């Protein structure tokens, strides 16, 4: 009995991993997704620089907001592309024919989207650090970014697989995603800005100040991953 569940779990993980592996190896060869996300993200930061006149004084209050707007805009670009690739080349039908649980496909796609998003974020952070002469590499901030990205991709993967199956698929994803993902955005921005302001003023970070936000992020991540797994079947069925 134990061996049987073990085998099922192993098969499940293998199916999940093969989805991730497919995406990663495809990206390694073409590099079209990450390069587009990165260039787009850098452009947004440049636009913000002139739109908000990011001098030292403004920067201290808006850095986390600028970062998260950049992440979410570049994130939608990636989500849309990663899903429409499946649709265009008929991969999605192939997925559905495979004798694996549908949730393995969902988790695989979410994981690969998450990996792309985190890579993009980890490349934007040093770029921002160099451009504005501020160190952004703090474990607390990385944890917040990771938690925020999990929630973002968990909902984003589900909604992008809805959006690509519609007539208006190029414009629909941000409209569907942003109102639903707003709690993630609020919590991530507030948590990041508390962390950054504590660092900049050389004070010890008050953990009780950011715990509520971290809690919201964790609740969101768990709740929406669970819902997405439950409804993903209905989204991809033909």
């Amino acid at each position: 009995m134990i061996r049987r569940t073990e085998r099922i779990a192993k098969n499940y993980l293998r199916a999940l991993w093969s989805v991730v592996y497919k995406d990663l190896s495809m990206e390694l060869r073409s590099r079209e997704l990450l390069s587009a996300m990165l260039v787009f993200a850098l452009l947004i930061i440049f636009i913000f620089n002139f739109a908000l006149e990011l001098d030292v004084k403004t920067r201290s209050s808006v850095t986390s907001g600028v970062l998260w707007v950049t992440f979410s805009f570049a994130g939608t670009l990636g989500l849309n592309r990663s899903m429409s690739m499946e649709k265009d080349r008929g991969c999605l039908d192939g997925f559905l024919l495979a004798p694996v649980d549908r949730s393995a496909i969902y988790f695989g796609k979410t994981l690969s989207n998450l990996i792309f998003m985190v890579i993009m974020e980890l490349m934007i952070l040093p770029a921002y650090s160099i451009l504005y002469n501020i160190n952004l590499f703090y474990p607390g901030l990385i944890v917040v970014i990771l938690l925020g990205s999990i929630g973002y991709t968990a909902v984003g993967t589900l909604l992008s697989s809805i959006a690509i199956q519609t007539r208006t698929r190029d414009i629909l994803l941000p409209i569907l995603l942003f109102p639903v993902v707003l709690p993630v955005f609020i919590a991530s921005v507030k948590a990041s800005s508390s962390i950054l302001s504590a660092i900049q003023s050389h004070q010890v970070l008050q953990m009780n100040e950011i715990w509520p936000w971290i809690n919201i992020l964790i609740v969101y991540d768990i709740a929406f991953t669970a819902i997405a797994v439950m409804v993903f079947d209905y989204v991809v069925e033909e």
Partner: protein
Amino acid sequence: MDPKPRLLIVIDIATVILLIIATAMVLFYTPVERVMGLVQKVFYFHVAAGWAGMLGFLVATISGVVYLITSNRKYDIVGLASVEIGMVFALINVITGSIWAKPIWNTWWTWDPRLTTVTIMLFIYAAYFMLRAGIEDPERRARFGAVYTVVGFISVPLTFFSARLFRTIHPIVVGANQPGATGAFDMSPSMLQTFLVSLFTFSFIFISLLWHRVRLGKLEDKVEQLKYKTME
């Protein structure tokens, strides 16, 4: 088309009578609030419209879940109907709120959690209409619509909590739901009665509209089917 059911006729008449009574009570029965004056009277229909709006979104979510389980077209029609009605009432809620807020808070708008949440709900359900408009296959449209109402509705409380937290950490904006908030007042008995009658009235309006809209939705369905038939 089936004739109008007797019960629906009764509900329609009751709704009209209730609406007349509620309006009369708001205008003539309730006292004028001492501090805020006449503008406070917006409160009765404001909260009632908010209630009817929430009811609409709740019904839409429940019928979304039921649709996903049963794949019965009927629940898609109910879901669409209640989102449409919920949108209208939520808009009435926001607009009457703004009318009240201008003299009381001295601004049309603040980023209070309730205001933020209602507006984000309007955005979610606007996206719902755009999603439906982009899908031709009725079965798929119903399925995606149901999924999106469920996902959207569950994010609403989280938006509310994060917006509230946003404020308790930065107490800059005028308070609305805290003790000592601007615009708070105690209800006299006649105010409370009118308030309850308004809630009751708006529930009736909601039921009557929903029933009419569902009947219309069924008719739409029939027209669509006839169209396919003549095309063959």
